[in-house]
């Protein structure tokens, strides 16, 4: 019997038992959908974290107060007030260090006319634009004079403009907005970067750090200091220079713990993607187990089916079916169940992760490889878990099978 005939015979048997076939597939559907969705969400999370960290700036070193254990991320970082504007001037601009800029962030209520929005205020200096690759769509960025004179000026992100004026293209330069009831003059609007969600550079206002400290926070807080190294090769040199400079400035004796932390972007990236990748693997692993359970479900049903159809097997053998014909028939049934289940699962997982992405406001990414792997994997599950029942069927003795009641 040729292969296509075997497929037809198998499909007919599956159709004859629609409910059972559907229920058997359900295990595969759920398993594959779970794997696809979990890996998709995990990859999406990794990608968005990577792009967020990369979006922080190039060759970036971040100094934050609080001590750290060997460069890792630590919950307590930034909690004390170890950094000050003096520290900023202590870091030398040289071959390794291109620019230094202090940053303090706070949240504020912003009002313009009848429009009002809540957004984050980034208080910083002129070099921030250089370090973070901020580009200006209209107007200008804050300058050293603004900082020196504590000018009440603000640079708006495009999302803020939309939220305040209802239109991203509204002309706002020169207008006065109120940030926590303090009037600020708008001097520029940044170019949209497209980043959304937490730490979006589109939904924030940049203002001189001196003004924000005096008018909005009331303290001379410096949350962190951003340092841009001249190139990736100078990251380590820059980091060493910062450490030496701050050791001196903070008068930390040799061997005592630092009260600040220098993180470089690569470390952060590695830590964060490490975390999300572990999470992805964990989620994928759990989903994989459900796939395994789905496979065992197929085997279980196929075994029942073989027993139930013993007489049919006997009849087929009596009129000339060889072991291989019977084996193929049952194997194809198992593979069709698993592959069909896998296909539906892929579609469902794709839809599910897209929906989850929408709900959680994050991008999900389902790679062609993960689809392909899931598909091949479900086919493999069909073969692996189908072979045992199929061999059992193929090995049946025609006389015994015909006698079976």
């Amino acid at each position: 019997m040729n292969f296509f005939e075997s497929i037809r015979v198998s499909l007919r048997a599956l159709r004859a038992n629609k409910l059972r076939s559907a229920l058997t597939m359900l295990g595969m559907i759920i398993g594959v959908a779970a794997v696809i969705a979990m890996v998709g969400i995990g990859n999406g999370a990794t990608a968005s974290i990577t792009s967020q960290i990369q979006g922080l700036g190039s060759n970036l070193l971040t100094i934050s107060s609080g001590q750290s254990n060997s460069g890792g991320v630590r919950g307590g970082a930034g909690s004390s007030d170890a950094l000050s504007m003096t520290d900023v001037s202590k870091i030398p601009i040289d071959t390794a260090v291109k620019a230094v800029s202090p940053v303090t962030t706070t949240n504020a209520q912003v009002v313009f006319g009848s429009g009002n929005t809540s957004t984050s205020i980034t208080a910083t200096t002129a070099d921030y634009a250089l370090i973070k690759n901020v580009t200006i769509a209209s107007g200008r960025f804050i300058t050293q004079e603004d900082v020196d004179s504590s000018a009440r000026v603000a640079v708006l992100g495009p999302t803020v403009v939309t939220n305040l004026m209802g239109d991203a293209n509204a002309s706002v330069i020169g207008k006065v907005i109120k940030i926590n009831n303090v009037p600020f003059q708008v001097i520029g609007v940044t170019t949209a970067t497209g980043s959304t969600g937490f730490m979006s550079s589109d939904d924030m206002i940049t203002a001189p750090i001196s003004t924000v400290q005096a008018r909005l926070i009331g303290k001379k807080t410096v949350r962190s200091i951003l340092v841009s190294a001249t190139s990736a090769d100078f990251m380590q040199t820059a980091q060493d220079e910062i450490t030496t400079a701050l050791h001196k400035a903070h008068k930390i004796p040799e061997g005592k713990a630092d009260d600040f932390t220098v993180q470089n972007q690569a470390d952060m990236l590695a830590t964060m993607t490490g975390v999300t990748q572990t999470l992805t693997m964990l989620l994928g692993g759990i989903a994989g187990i459900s796939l395994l359970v789905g496979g065992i479900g197929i085997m279980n049903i196929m075994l029942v089916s073989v027993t139930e159809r013993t007489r049919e097997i006997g009849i087929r053998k009596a009129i000339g079916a060889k072991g291989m014909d019977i084996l193929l028939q049952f194997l194809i049934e198992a593979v069709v169940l698993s592959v069909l289940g896998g296909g539906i699962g892929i579609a469902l997982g794709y839809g599910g992760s897209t929906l989850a992405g929408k709900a959680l406001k994050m991008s999900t990414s389902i790679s062609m490889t993960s689809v392909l792997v899931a598909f091949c994997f479900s086919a493999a599950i069909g073969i692996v878990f189908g072979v045992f029942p199929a061999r059992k069927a193929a090995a049946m003795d025609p006389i015994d099978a015909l006698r079976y009641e």
Partner: protein
Amino acid sequence: MIDLKGIKKIYANGDIQVAALNGVDLHVGASEFVSIMGPSGSGKSSMMNILGCLDTPTEGEYYLDGTDVAKASGDDLSVIRNRKIGFVFQGFNLLARTTAVENVELPMLYAGIGGKERRARAIAALESVGLGGRIHHRPKELSGGQQQRVAIARALVTKPSIILADEPTGNLDSRSSEEVMAIFQRLHASGNTIIIVTHEPDIAEFTQRIVRFRDGHIEGDEVVQNQRLAQALVLEEGEAK
């Protein structure tokens, strides 16, 4: 055609051994029409299963068309059953959820015959047993006699050299029985070798030779003196095409 030499079939049930066949020698030539008779448990079915290559003997030689098939492997036996033997069972053994024509197509499926030819030959075979009007019926939509005729169509559709039937009329009333025997007589007339097992002497009278079994061996072998001619009764309404 068929040559059995010292065939033994021994079933071992734990410590107890049952010799269903205890040294059977039998020769059946081409185009013979033989019935096997004997009391219940005398080994008739065991014999037929071996003849039909469904089972292998514990001991002895079985030459079918000159080759010893007693020691053939499972897959080789499948091929022999498919090419040379048409088997008709007492319980019909049709696939339940499958239509008459698809049941008849089945052996040709395993013989590797293409779909179009398969369908044409299956329909022709069903017509030859008077079921041309019932080809798309499922077994449960057919009477016992009709089901047995589907089974006969399935047995003869591959044009086997031997047709074996173990109590083909065992589940049928006398009218259906005679119809089935009429079909066998017609097949015999066209040159087929036919061996049937039966309990009923009047069914045996439709054949030409009676082999009598007792306790696993042949007790008698006689020629039927006055072979009865089975009447192909009028086909039921709608069966004639």
